[in-house]
């Protein structure tokens, strides 16, 4: 799952080396905390959060066959 998040975000930013995904397990869900270079924040959020929404839709859909619910936290 971490790999998928990185794969999705990598071509969207100017500083792919600054992408960080931190995984945290909570009782009912897996939380992934995504951080990117401050200059790239807008690029992963998009106008009205459209890009962030698309990233979440894809990640959640890919996570349906995992045991726990997934939550993606951006920045």
């Amino acid at each position, binding site marked *: 799952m971490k*790999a*998928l998040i990185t*794969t*999705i975000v990598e*071509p*969207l930013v100017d500083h792919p080396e600054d992408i960080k995904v931190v995984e945290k397990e909570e009782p009912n869900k897996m939380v992934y905390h995504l951080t990117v270079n401050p200059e790239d924040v807008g*690029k992963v959020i*998009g*106008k*009205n959060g*459209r*890009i962030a*929404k*698309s*990233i979440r*839709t*894809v990640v959640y*859909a*890919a996570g*349906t066959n995992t045991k726990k619910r997934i939550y993606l936290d951006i920045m």
Partner: protein
Amino acid sequence: MKQVTASGQTVNDAVQSALQQLNTTEDQVHIDIIDEGKKGMFGLFGAKRAIVKVTIKEDPIDQAKIYLKQIAHSFSNDVDVDVKRDGQNIRFDLSGEKIAMIIGKRGQTLNAIQHLVQVMLNRHTNEHFRIIIDAEGYRERRQATLEQLAQRLADKAIKIKKHVALEPMPSYERKIIHSILQDNHEVETYSDGKEPNRHVVIKPLL
């Protein structure tokens, strides 16, 4: 961008050596000759090696295809991507097992993937590409569904003499609804709300 600088006895030798290092072929690269080199006397005195800089040309559409494939493979390893290009319009067709997972409820996952690929592709080029990602004929089936839905809701709007709002849809799906009801003179259609909640409203004319 991947590039190497290589040298050889002749320009051709240098290019070949660079191609080998990059593991590619001549039609995939851009070649800059830095020094043509000199043969020298009897190949001994004053000989200078030829130096070239070889850069791999990155085709944005290929990049997009790889990107799409990587995303699709997180759902199922058995997904193929077929690309068709017609000017600025590019069509990606996904096929394979578990395609329903990739489409998602009312195509929301497919639409999200399409949006990401669109953003990614247009970030790397100056051209503006319009893309469509389809999976096992989903878009056509959706069109048929939308046609039925539009007719049904138009009838309803006429019957109850009130505006009927549809659920939010992406622009090309709204366009389908508008164009279907264009020929129906008893109703008018318009879009209301802001993306991503923009939706079609059908208004009875009487």
